[in-house]
């Protein structure tokens, strides 16, 4: 059991009150598992990713625990968390384009970073990893500005995984890329997992189709809570949560034409996380909502490894 998240609550402090961006999230991940995290914008995906490695100044850990490889991550304690970062948990940020110090040559930056973490640079290893993502060795001698977007993205990937972390969080790493580059990056990620550079990975995206290609398990979030978590094929083929279903229905696949099959979106909009309504949060948009939905639905394992938080599932 690699990662165990229990009833995690992380709020943002704001003027108007706490934004309950993560409001009781529990799930677990196996070694070697790639977990795809999907959901509408603002549902808390990034928040979850950040909570596991480094919370920013406005985030507050309000409860719940995270265990990685049997050890509890002190996620609310920035200082203690430092020991885990990079070695145990690592991150490929959304902002890869600007994640590297613009005034240092990449090689030097990597060396300094590693030294500061008490590790030495294994040049051969680095080189082999670079070639895995099809980067020439010469990039180490360049400044970030001299690299293209895709190259930077891959370079950051290599850097983040240099210490072979147990858990890698990849937040929207492909959103800014072209379909073809996106594919290459996605494959590289799988390659990293396969090569054992990372044990497990949380792949955050809002692109369900893409995540279905990468992830072993897909977790769908809605308004700060988990809606459904199941093996990728199960989610795509047999979604159980009405939200997941509607979401999938609104995706125009290549080949689907307006004239032939008219798709429809989900009416309404998600509730404010400042003061979310009690009970099922999808209730107001849910076509099949009923009385019981006033109560908050528990996460139930309706099939092996298929968890759904819906009374009607």
């Amino acid at each position: 059991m690699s990662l165990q998240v229990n009833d995690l609550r992380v709020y943002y402090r704001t003027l108007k009150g706490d934004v309950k961006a993560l409001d009781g999230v529990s799930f677990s991940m196996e070694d070697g598992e790639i977990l795809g995290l999907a959901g509408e914008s603002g549902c808390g995906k990034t928040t979850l990713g950040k909570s596991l490695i480094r919370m920013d100044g406005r985030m507050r850990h309000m409860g719940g625990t995270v265990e990685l490889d049997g050890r509890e991550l002190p996620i609310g304690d920035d200082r203690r968390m430092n020991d885990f970062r990079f070695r145990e948990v690592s991150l490929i940020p959304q902002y890869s384009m600007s994640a590297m110090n613009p005034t240092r040559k990449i090689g030097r930056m990597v060396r300094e970073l590693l030294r500061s973490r008490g590790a030495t640079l294994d040049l051969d290893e680095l080189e082999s990893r670079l070639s895995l993502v099809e980067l020439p060795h010469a990039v180490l001698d360049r400044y970030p500005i001299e690299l293209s977007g895709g190259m930077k993205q891959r370079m950051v990937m290599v850097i983040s995984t240099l210490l072979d972390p147990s858990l890698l969080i990849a937040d929207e790493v492909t959103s800014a890329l072209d379909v073809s580059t996106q594919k290459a990056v996605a494959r590289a990620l799988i390659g990293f997992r396969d090569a054992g550079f990372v044990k497990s990975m949380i792949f955050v995206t809002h692109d369900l189709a893409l995540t279905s290609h990468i992830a072993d398990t897909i977790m769908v979030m809605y308004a700060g809570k988990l809606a459904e978590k199941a093996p990728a094929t199960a989610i795509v083929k047999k979604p159980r949560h009405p939200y997941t279903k509607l979401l999938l229905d609104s995706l125009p696949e290549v080949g689907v034409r307006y004239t032939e099959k008219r798709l429809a979106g989900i009416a309404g909009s998600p509730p404010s996380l400042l003061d979310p309504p009690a009970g099922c949060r999808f209730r107001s948009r849910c076509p099949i909502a009923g009385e019981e939905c006033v109560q908050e639905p528990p996460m139930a394992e309706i099939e092996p490894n298929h968890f759904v938080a819906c009374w009607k599932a």
Partner: protein
Amino acid sequence: MLKLDNVTKVYKVGAFGGKVFAAVDGVSFDVQAGEVVSLIGESGSGKSTIGKMILGLASITGGSITVDGVPVKPGKDYYRHVQGVFQDPFSCYNPVFKADRVFQMIKDAYYPKLGDKEWDERVRSTIRDVRLDPDQVLGRYPHQLSGGQLQRLLIARALLLDLKLLVADEITSMLDASTRIDVLNLLAELKERGLGVLYVTHDLSLGNYLAERTVVLRRGTVVEMGATGKVFGDPLHPYTRQLLAAVPRLHAPWEDAAPTQTCHYHENAASGAMFEAEPGHLVACAQLDACPK
């Protein structure tokens, strides 16, 4: 209706415009009334530049763009018939003003004499046309509205005019999957009203969903164009094929595109010559036969 003929756009880059860079190079296609044409290509291929040239927001270096035979001429008269909607709905609204200012600007420019009441009625009905509740959206600041709502308001704004052509530049890429489809459906309805729509996107599945015809753009030149069914169903150009192969599909595994090492489409495409593979299906490749399908 809209006609691009050998359109070129050269940007001067570097100090004092020391270098030139052709963002669009010899592009020709047209858009008919009541038709959606999707313009597809990777980032930097020149899609937005074409859109901007049509809207008169960027000058045209070479070739010609005409709407109903009239060349692009930025100004009130032109914009009465040609309007655009852009990628980022949030950046289309001046954040310090209320969202309905976009309507007010239209009124000030085009209907200064119209009574406030009459105008208000008109706005409300148009907003209902884009399937929004006027009471919910009017009088609010942009950040109080969702991306989908904002995007629809922009379309409504365009509809207040005597519109013939709408350039929709990546209008859905910032939207959530669930709202995205509604906006797309709205575009499709426009074409049913007889408008021409140029739909710019890098998301092939969306182009496919909506458009009658598709133009595939690569590094400023058209590599393939034709009826959407043909282009997607039977892509001829290796680049189109590669692009299609990279699109993740829900129910199908990623397929590997045919190896393209033997193909020199870059060089050929640069010539700008198009070959009609079948009626209405043009490809910029001289060696189609040599290409493994």
